[in-house]
């Protein structure tokens, strides 16, 4: 095997209708607090938290929203929580015009694992998990 074939690209899930948040260097209790607050305030039905690596978490919400609302929610959480990394994430998603979360491994980081579920999981979370399963099969 040559050095060229060692690295693989990162695989992720991308869309405009699912509210997704990426918390970097944040403890789990803060992630839970802001996710619950956003979930209640915007009536997002439910959410799951995935652990990407130590103190790095992803959150996926259940309710389907339009892109304008999605940007609104991401920015609301980023501003209210005063988390700089989350602000960067929200800005980047705005530039790309779709939000993405990593599903495959990245460097030393393994595939994100679900560590917490809250309330309903039947709409966007279900679709996210279907794609996640499909991508995981591709990797394995």
């Amino acid at each position, binding site marked *: 095997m040559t050095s060229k074939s060692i690295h693989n690209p990162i695989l992720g899930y991308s869309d405009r209708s699912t509210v997704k948040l990426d918390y970097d260097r944040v403890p789990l209790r803060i992630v839970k607090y802001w996710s619950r607050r956003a979930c209640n305030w915007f009536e997002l039905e439910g959410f799951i938290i995935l652990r990407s690596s130590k103190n790095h978490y992803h959150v996926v919400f259940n309710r389907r929203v339009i892109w304008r609302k999605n940007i609104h929610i991401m920015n609301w959480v980023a501003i209210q929580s005063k988390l700089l990394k989350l602000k960067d994430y929200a800005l980047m998603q705005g530039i790309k015009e779709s939000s*993405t979360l990593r599903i495959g491994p990245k460097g030393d980081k393994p595939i994100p694992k679900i560590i917490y579920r809250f309330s309903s999981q039947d709409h966007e979370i279900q679709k996210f998990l279907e794609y996640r399963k499909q991508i995981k099969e591709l990797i394995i």
Partner: protein
Amino acid sequence: MTTTRKENWGKRGKVIVTRDERGRFVHWELYYEALIRKNYYGKAIAVYGVGVNRFGRASRRYEFFGRGRELEEAVRRAYHYPPKGQFVSVSASEFNSNPSRYGSEGHWDDFEVNS
């Protein structure tokens, strides 16, 4: 490093053109096709990283729309065809039928992870 911008080509109409840092042509796509994809396709698999091909080493990204085997095939092909431009959003079946239209043979480098 490549740049992408909108241009008006008399024969083709509005197009999105990608050029490298020396201004050499890399890739073109009809503007409305890109717009339709962006607005109407739903879920996508993103394949991204530092792509290295004849256009240089840069952060590059594919977004594939589609289902099942087509998607699987597209992701596998994308491993050997980093995109020509920085951002390519394409249906998996279209990419599979002609990967060299959207990508150029090469490989992916490791991300310089700073987090």
